[in-house]
């Protein structure tokens, strides 16, 4: 019995060992891949309403190295663009009437509608937030003034001014009744003596009446010049005739007065005979009481003169003086031309009476109380005006409105590397990589250890990962903006963003085989994030972060006076808008459970997954995923997929904030809102033979506030949906060399130069995969036909206008994937997607006007996709003829613009990635071989099946003929020599554009031409070992004769390379 037991256990052991040795027999267990494998995947993600779209490329390679070590490399590249939500605001704050802005900053009368909460396109200044088209321009602000002013005045009447006496006690009428002497020779304009009188006493002094001083103007030519007392005693008057320099009147105390009227008797008479054009009485008013220099002047022009009236001689009556004679301190009446006593015998005579003077009621300066009141009025009114705009009533639950910003087209590139070491029961994995995009650089590394127990039915994995991110922000030129607006408007001067964050993650996972068809995995992860965790492109509307009082202070601030940090700890990004601010720490915990169940009867597997998530930002999330892998006949697999996700909102999230938060953390990023998401999809995979798997799928995803578990989501303002389409190809590289008869048959065929495509078919059921690369370069001089063209001469090749720039170099790179399948012995089907990657450098043409779009241009993305069939129409021995018919679908962009946005001009024709038309590509190939020698010829053409694409043009038709020969130097190495001639017609129609033509490459007739190339190449075929059947080829095409249409950049040559293998 003992022996039997031993034998039976030995047998069991042997069986077990044998079973374990079978590839894949260790469920979920650690074994290196048995063969190298590679995966290529393309995904296209598109959100609703022309929001974000992303093209995602992925490639990876798994390379086992004996049975203890495995290395895998992967490469990811996402290119994204489109609109993305920037912030949201209550409906009540949108579309408010606002006065347009004049160039000088003053509001114009026209009203238009604008959001109160608005993002500035660049940096912000205090002036722009308020008076320069900011809050002060809203109609509500303007309209609020009257009521605010009335309310202030009602509560705060203006403080009264203290009474101020007038300069003269009351109206004064000089009637000259008090003239005691017959004449007065005093000069009233002379510097007064103490008490205000003029120098001199009695008849040598001035006449005084009612506080006024009346005399002559000091006259150096006549020491006895004087005024006269005239008229009877009952009605005295003042007389002036040709023995003095005129009548001068001022106040005794020098005070100001108004000269209202006077009685002027100057009738023409024997003593006053002249009435010529210059016989005029000048009445001059002065702002200075005494000015001894008047007599020496010309009688009219004085710095102190503030009023002048000329009255023709002969005037007799009351003269009312104009207002210019109000508030004067002296006046002078004299005969024109005689500021001094006439010395030429001139005669004139005047009597003056009833001079009406009145006191000046001086306007007193505002008192300090009045000044303070006026300032308080302005402040209070302005604050009420700001409040009218800012604190506009927002109904409870007012629907948020989302505002977007455009994400320019950018790419993220992520290479990564993983290594795994396999020990008996333990696997160690170490990996890391970097992710690089314009404003975000991330590097990450992780390791984990897996230990298997319990006959490998149980495995436990423990791991740790570290990520470090560097975050910057582009698109806001702080310094430039501040300079442009100067200090006077108080630009915000936040430093450019240069922040970091880091994540530490620990993971633990338990895998357990529950039954021969059932598997369970339970995992947990804990992540500690710290540093800058905000999104630099998301904004929040926060009412009250800047109060109406602070807006008033910003408005009133002088140059350089604003200290933004004391206004708000947030970064101001526009009117009432701030950059979001999240806490600088986040701790995340996630627990996942997955169950795999195989259903033998249905030949299907079910995967159920549930994840529980919680973080200290208060977000709870649940994720449910179901995936059904249904195997179908002919190695086809159909996989439906369904997922539900729900999360609660972050503690500091709101669509908008109507009051500041104490900790000043805010986010309105929809990804931190409460919402649910439902997604589902379907994918189809087909495996060819042992080594090639093709898959395509589509998934639809809808994000809705109302889908949140338990309700209370963010509402529907941020709802959107998206779809993700993907296609992938997975190749078991080792399988290619598996010695299939097909492979032998295929590669028994003669090698081909790398640049020859669609040349030979496959045997029945054959599958071939190839990667082709082409690098084509143009550089150097421009050519017109076969002659070189100087830069100055290039200018003439832009049609109606002169060229301003010309391409100086251009590189086009093509990556093409070629999949061939042969359903019958003679027919081979082909599919060839490709990407195009172009770079062009421009150079200004000397002496031409500056080009608006000079500089370097880039264009990269999916190209046109070709598909079709090859038919072997003749075969005899080593001779065969293949007829090919391919269709090219317009999957490449044919109206690409300089930065892929609608507001930049289109790239030129050579930089477009597709034709935009469906094209037919027929070909005929003859192949032959003899001994070590092989040869062939191919005739191919391309016909555009449409007259023009949607952008208004079609590329020209073309054809190509080539012939080649080669020799097999060694069993694995051959050399090829080829001559090729191609004719490509010019572009038909014209690419629609609004901008003027600047470069010859933008014109349709400067496209295409006739080209002859010589190709020299090599072909290497792996003849044995794990990689048998793989073939590498490369060819250099050297232009030997070019005849381009119009003016074009010289061609340098092209490199073609390919790698192919068959199953």
């Amino acid at each position, binding site marked *: 019995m003992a022996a039997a037991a031993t034998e039976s256990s030995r047998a069991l052991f042997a069986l077990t060992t044998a079973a374990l040795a079978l590839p894949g027999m260790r469920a979920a267990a650690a074994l290196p891949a048995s063969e190298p494998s590679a995966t290529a995947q393309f995904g296209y993600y598109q959100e609703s309403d022309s929001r974000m779209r992303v093209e995602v490329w992925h490639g990876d390679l798994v390379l086992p190295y004996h049975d203890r070590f495995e290395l895998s490399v992967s490469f990811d590249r996402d290119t994204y663009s489109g609109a993305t939500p920037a912030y949201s605001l209550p409906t009540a704050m949108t579309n408010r009437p606002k006065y347009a802005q004049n160039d000088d900053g003053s509001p114009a009368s026209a009203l238009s509608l604008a959001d109160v909460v608005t993002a500035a396109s660049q940096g912000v200044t205090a002036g722009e937030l308020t008076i320069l088209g900011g809050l002060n321009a809203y109609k509500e602000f303007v309209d609020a003034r009257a009521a605010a002013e009335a309310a202030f005045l009602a509560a705060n009447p203006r403080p009264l001014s203290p009474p101020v006496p007038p300069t003269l006690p009351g109206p004064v009428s000089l009637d000259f009744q008090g003239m005691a002497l017959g004449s007065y020779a005093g000069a009233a304009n002379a510097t007064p003596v103490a008490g205000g009188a003029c120098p001199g006493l009695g008849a040598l002094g001035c006449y005084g009446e009612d506080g006024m001083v009346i005399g002559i103007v000091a006259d150096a030519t006549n020491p006895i010049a004087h005024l006269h007392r005239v008229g009877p005693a009952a009605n005295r008057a003042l007389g002036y005739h040709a023995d003095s320099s005129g009548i001068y009147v001022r106040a005794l105390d020098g005070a100001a007065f108004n000269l209202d009227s006077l009685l002027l008797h100057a009738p023409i008479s024997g003593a006053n005979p002249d009435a010529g054009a210059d016989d005029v009485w000048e009445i001059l008013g002065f702002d200075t009481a005494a000015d001894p220099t008047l007599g020496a002047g010309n009688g009219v022009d004085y710095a102190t003169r503030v009023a002048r009236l000329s009255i023709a001689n002969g005037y007799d009556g009351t003269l009312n003086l104009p207002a210019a004679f109000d508030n004067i301190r002296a006046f002078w009446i004299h005969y024109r031309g005689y500021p001094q006593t006439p010395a030429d015998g001139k005669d004139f005579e005047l009597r003056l009476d009833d001079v009406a003077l009145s006191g000046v009621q001086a306007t007193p300066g505002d008192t300090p109380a009045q000044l303070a009141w006026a300032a308080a009025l302005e402040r209070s009114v302005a604050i009420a005006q700001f409040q009218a705009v800012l604190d506009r009533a927002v109904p409870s639950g007012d629907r948020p409105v989302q505002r977007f910003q455009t994400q320019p087209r950018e790419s993220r590139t992520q290479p990564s590397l993983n290594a795994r070491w396999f020990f008996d029961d333990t696997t160690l994995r170490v990996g890391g990589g970097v992710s690089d995009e314009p404003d975000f650089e991330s590097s990450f590394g992780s390791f984990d250890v897996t230990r298997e127990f319990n006959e490998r039915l149980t495995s436990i994995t423990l791991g740790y990962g570290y990520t470090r991110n560097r975050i910057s922000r582009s698109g806001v030129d702080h310094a430039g903006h501040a300079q442009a607006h100067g200090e006077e408007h108080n630009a915000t001067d936040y430093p450019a963003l240069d922040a970091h*964050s880091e994540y530490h993650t620990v993971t633990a996972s338990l895998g357990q085989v529950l039954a021969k068809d059932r598997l369970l995995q339970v995992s947990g992860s804990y992540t500690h994030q710290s540093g800058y965790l905000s999104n630099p492109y998301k904004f929040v509307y926060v009412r009250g972060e800047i109060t109406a009082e602070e807006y008033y202070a910003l408005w009133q601030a002088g140059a350089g006076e604003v200290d933004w940090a004391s206004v708000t700890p947030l970064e101001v990004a526009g009117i009432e808008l701030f950059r979001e601010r999240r806490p600088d720490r986040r701790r995340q915990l996630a627990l996942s459970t997955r169950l795999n169940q195989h259903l033998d009867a249905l030949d299907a597997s079910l995967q159920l997954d549930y994840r529980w998530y919680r973080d200290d930002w208060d977000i709870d999330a649940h994720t449910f995923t179901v995936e059904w892998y249904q195997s179908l006949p002919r190695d086809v697999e159909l996989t439906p997929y369904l997922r539900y996700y729900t999360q609660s909102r972050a503690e500091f999230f709101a669509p908008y904030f109507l009051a500041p938060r104490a900790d000043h953390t805010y986010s309105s990023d929809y990804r931190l809102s409460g919402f649910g998401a439902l997604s589902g999809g379907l994918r189809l995979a087909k495996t060819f033979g042992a080594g090639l798997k093709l898959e395509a799928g589509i998934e639809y995803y809808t994000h809705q506030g109302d889908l949140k578990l338990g309700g209370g989501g963010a509402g529907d303002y941020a709802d959107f949906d998206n779809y993700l389409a993907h296609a992938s190809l997975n190749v078991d590289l080792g399988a290619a060399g598996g010695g299939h008869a097909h492979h032998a048959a295929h590669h028994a065929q003669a090698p081909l130069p790398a640049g020859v495509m669609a040349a030979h078919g496959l045997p029945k059921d054959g599958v071939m995969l190839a990667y082709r690369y082409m690098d084509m370069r143009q550089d150097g001089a421009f050519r017109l036909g076969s002659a070189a063209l100087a830069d100055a001469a290039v200018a003439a090749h832009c049609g109606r206008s002169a060229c301003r720039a010309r391409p100086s170099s251009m590189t086009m790179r093509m990556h093409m994937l070629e999949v061939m399948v042969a359903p019958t012995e003679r027919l081979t089907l082909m599919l060839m997607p490709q990407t195009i990657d172009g770079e062009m450098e421009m150079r200004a043409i000397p002496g031409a006007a500056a080009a608006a779009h000079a500089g370097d241009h880039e264009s990269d993305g999916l190209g046109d996709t070709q598909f079709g069939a090859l038919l072997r129409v003749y075969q005899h021995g080593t001779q065969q003829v293949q007829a090919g018919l391919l269709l090219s679908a317009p999957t490449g962009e044919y109206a690409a613009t300089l930065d892929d946005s609608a507001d930049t001009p289109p790239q030129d024709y050579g930089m477009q990635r597709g034709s935009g038309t469906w094209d037919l590509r027929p070909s005929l190939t003859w192949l032959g071989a003899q001994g070590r020698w092989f040869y062939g010829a191919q005739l191919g053409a391309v016909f555009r099946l449409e007259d023009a694409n949607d952008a208004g043009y079609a590329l020209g038709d073309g054809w190509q003929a080539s012939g080649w020969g080669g020799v097999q130097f060694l069993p694995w190495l051959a050399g090829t020599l080829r001559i090729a001639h191609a004719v490509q017609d010019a572009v038909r129609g014209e690419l629609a554009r609004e901008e003027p033509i600047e470069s010859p490459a933008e014109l349709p007739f400067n496209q295409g031409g006739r080209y002859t190339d010589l190709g020299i190449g090599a072909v290497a075929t792996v003849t044995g070992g794990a990689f048998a059947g793989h073939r590498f080829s490369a060819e250099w095409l050297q232009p030997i004769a070019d005849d381009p249409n119009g003016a074009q950049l010289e061609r340098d040559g092209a490199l073609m390379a390919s790698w192919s293998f068959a199953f």
Partner: protein
Amino acid sequence: MSERAVRVAFVLSCLALAACAQVEPWQRGTLARRDMQLTPDPALAALRDHLHVSKEAAQGGHRGLGGGCGCN
């Protein structure tokens, strides 16, 4: 967690482990199928993860770290 709950959990896990102990190596053909792997399509899973992390707040669970992104 109450003592009773701990006891129930212990018994359940023993049962679970006991159940799997019966899967002999030669019975593991089904478990070796690609569609029974924990992550049958790693590239697609990574693509989905990247999009979900870009559009949702939760992350982590079964899968480890990738790089951060400035996703919008």
